[in-house]
C-alpha cells in the first residue's frame, strides 16, 4: 500500500500513513482534539512534541463554548502548508455530508472557518496555531452521538466534501483520504453554564498592555465565572480566566495581556450558579481597561480604581502563576508606588438579571 504524500491526519496513534488505511479503527482520531472550555497557549507547540503521541482530547461540555484543536503529520517530501477545517455531525447524519458541511467551526474572532497549518519539513508533526470554537454545544439527538471531522486542505489535496448526495460508506471515504480525520466524541452535561455571553473585540490601531476583567456582583457565593478568547496574541498565548469561584460580592478576577494593533477576537464570558440564587442586583461584566502610568497624559482621564465597582479585586500574576490582590499587582510597578491607580475603561459587556434566578 502506498504511503500518503501530503499533510496527514492519523486515524490512530500507530497509524503508519498508508492509503487506504486498513486494520485500524477509523473513528477515534487522536488528531481531532476537543479540549474543553479553556483554550491553550501556543497550541501549535503544545499538541506536537512530547504530546504528539498522546491522546489529548477531553469530553465536550454541553451548552458551553468548547475549544477544538486539530493536528497531523506531514508526509510530503518537504515543507508544506495547508488550511485545517473542523466539522461536527450527529452520528445519524454522518453519511450526508451535504448537511454537516454546514457545521463548520470558526475561529474565535469569527472571521475564518479554518486555521492555517504549516510543517517545516517532511515527517514533521503540525497543529493549528489557534482553536476553532464549537459554540453552545447542543446535546446530541436521542440514540445518537456527535462525530467530529477534520479536513486539511493543501494545494495538492484539497479533500473536497461533496455539496450534495451521500456516502454509501463513510468509513471507506475516511480510509481513502489521508487528509480527513474522524472522531466520535462524548458530550457531558454536568457543570454547564446558565448564561453564556459574548462580545466582539477589535483592538484598533494602537496596541498596548490591557487588563481583561470579569466582575460578578450579587452572585451567589460558590457560583463561578470565567471568560476566554482562543485568538492568540503575538507570543502565541491566549487571554482567559478559568472557572473561578465567587467568594464575595462584588468580586473581580483579571489578567493582563499585551494586545497588538488590529487584534480581533470574540470574548466569551460564562456564569454558572452551582445551585445558588443570585440577588436582585445580579450582574456579570466583562471589561477591558488600560492602566496608564502616572506620567501619562491619559492618567487624568482614568477613574480611581476604588470607584470602579470592582470590589474584591484579584489579578493573575503571570510570573508567579497565581492571583495577587490588584492593589499589590499594580503597585508592584514602580510608577504606582504612590498615588491612585486610575484605569481607563475601554470596553465592557455586562449581563444583568434575571432577578433571583436559580
Amino acid at each position, binding site marked *: 500500500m502506498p504511503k500518503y504524500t501530503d499533510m496527514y491526519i492519523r486515524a490512530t496513534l500507530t497509524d503508519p500513513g498508508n492509503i487506504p488505511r486498513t486494520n485500524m479503527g477509523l473513528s477515534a482520531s487522536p488528531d481531532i482534539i476537543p479540549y474543553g472550555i479553556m483554550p491553550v497557549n501556543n497550541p501549535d507547540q503544545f499538541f506536537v512534541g512530547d504530546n504528539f503521541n498522546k491522546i489529548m482530547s477531553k469530553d465536550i461540555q454541553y451548552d*458551553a463554548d468548547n475549544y477544538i484543536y486539530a493536528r497531523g503529520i506531514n508526509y510530503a517530501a518537504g515543507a508544506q502548508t495547508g488550511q485545517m477545517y473542523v466539522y461536527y455531525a450527529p452520528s445519524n447524519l454522518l453519511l450526508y455530508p451535504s448537511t454537516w458541511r454546514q457545521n463548520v467551526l470558526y475561529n474565535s474572532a469569527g472571521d475564518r472557518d479554518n486555521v492555517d497549518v504549516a510543517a517545516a519539513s517532511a515527517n514533521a508533526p503540525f497543529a493549528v496555531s489557534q482553536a476553532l470554537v464549537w459554540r453552545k454545544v447542543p446535546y446530541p439527538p436521542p440514540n445518537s452521538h456527535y462525530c467530529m471531522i477534520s479536513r486539511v486542505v493543501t494545494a495538492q489535496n484539497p479533500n473536497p466534501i461533496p455539496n450534495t448526495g451521500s456516502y454509501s460508506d463513510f468509513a471507506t471515504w475516511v480510509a481513502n483520504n489521508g487528509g480527513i480525520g474522524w472522531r466520535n466524541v462524548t458530550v457531558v452535561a454536568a457543570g*454547564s453554564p446558565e448564561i*453564556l*455571553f459574548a*462580545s466582539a473585540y477589535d483592538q484598533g490601531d494602537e496596541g498596548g498592555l490591557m487588563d481583561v476583567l470579569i466582575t460578578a456582583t450579587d452572585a451567589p457565593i460558590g457560583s463561578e465565572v470565567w471568560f476566554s478568547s482562543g485568538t492568540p496574541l503575538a507570543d502565541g498565548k491566549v487571554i482567559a480566566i478559568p472557572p473561578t469561584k465567587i467568594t464575595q460580592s462584588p468580586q473581580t478576577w483579571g489578567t493582563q495581556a499585551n494586545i497588538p494593533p488590529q487584534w480581533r477576537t*470574540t470574548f466569551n464570558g460564562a456564569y454558572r450558579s452551582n445551585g445558588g440564587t443570585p440577588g436582585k442586583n445580579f450582574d456579570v461584566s466583562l471589561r477591558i481597561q488600560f492602566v496608564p502610568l502616572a506620567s501619562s497624559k491619559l492618567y487624568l482621564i482614568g477613574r480611581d480604581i476604588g470607584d470602579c465597582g470592582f470590589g474584591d479585586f484579584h489579578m493573575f500574576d503571570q510570573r508567579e502563576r497565581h492571583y495577587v490582590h490588584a492593589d499589590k499587582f499594580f503597585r508592584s510597578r514602580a510608577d504606582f508606588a504612590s498615588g491612585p491607580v486610575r484605569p481607563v475603561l475601554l470596553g465592557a*459587556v*455586562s449581563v*444583568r438579571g434575571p*432577578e433571583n434566578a436559580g
Partner: protein
Amino acid sequence: MSRKLATSQYDDLLCRASLADTGTIPRTPPLEESPDVIPVGTAAVLDPKAYFTGNYGKNVAKPVVAEEANLIYVRGKNLAPAVQNGDVYVYWARAEDLDSPSKWQGNQLLTVEGHGSFRLTDVEPGAITVATSAFTWTPDAALEGKSAVLIGVLATNDHPNPVPTLRSPLDFNRWVSKQGGVGAFKTTVVSKPKPDPTVTLSGDFKLAEGGLAEFLVTVTDMPLGTEVSMKLTTPVDGHVISIPQTRITQNPQTIGVSATVPQNYTSQIETRIAPAGSGVPGSNNSVVTRAQYTPPGASGPVRPVLLARYSIHFGK
C-alpha cells in the same frame, strides 16, 4: 335586663389584643389585632428595643410572605407593680383551627438562634419590653391567600398562660379575652413576589466619524412571546434611540432601528430580554445585538462595517 361583666386590671406582662387594649380583663373585640405580635418581613430590625418601644402606639406589622423566612418580634408592657421576668413563645395557626389548639400547639416558632422561647428579664413596672431576637416562620406555598394567626404568649410565674390543650373545643377568642399575656395577630399570607425574569445585555458603542448607524437585535430559538427592547443610553438631540418592547412571533426574528449619531458619539447599548413565561429557550437560543455602519460614498455592494456585536445564550 342586661348583666354587666365583672372586670379587673391585668397586673403582669401585657400582650395587647388590639391598640385599644389597656389591660382590662376581659378584653373586648377586636381580639385578633394584637400590635405586639409583629411580623416585619425578612429583614431584621437593627435596634428592636428602640424601634418597638418608640412605636408602641402603632401597629407596625408587615405582610407575611409565603415561602420566605418571615421574622416576628414580640413586645409587651409590664403592668405589675414590681419588676417582672418572663418568657416569650410564639405559635402560628390556620384561622379555622384556632378553636382546636391540638392542631396548632405543635406549630411553635423558634427564634433566629433556634430557641423555643426568649427570656425577658428585669422589666421595670410600666416599662415596655421587647423580645430582641425575632422568631422565624416560613409558611409553605399552600398557605398563600389563607388567613393565619400568630399567637404570642408572655409567660410569667404569676401568669403562665399555658395553651389550653385539654379543653377542646376551645373558644379561642374567649380564652384570649381572659389572658392578658396572650396576643393574637390575624393576617393573610401573601404570595412570594415573582422574580423579574428580565435580562439586560449591555455593551459599548462608539462611532467617531458619526453618521447613519443601524442597530439590530436578532432573537433565535427563544419562546414565542418573549419580549425584547433596545435602547442607547446617550440621547441624540434629546431623543433616545430605541426599539420599543417587541413581542417575538417568529424564529428567528430580527428587529432594528437606524439613526444618525453625531461625531465622537459613545453610548451603552442596552438590550432587554423578558423571556416568555411559558416555554423553554431552545438549545440553540441566542439574542444577538449588532451595531453596523455603512461609510458614506462607498461604491459597489453595500458592505456595512460591524461596530459592535454582543450576544447572550441562556443555558438550561
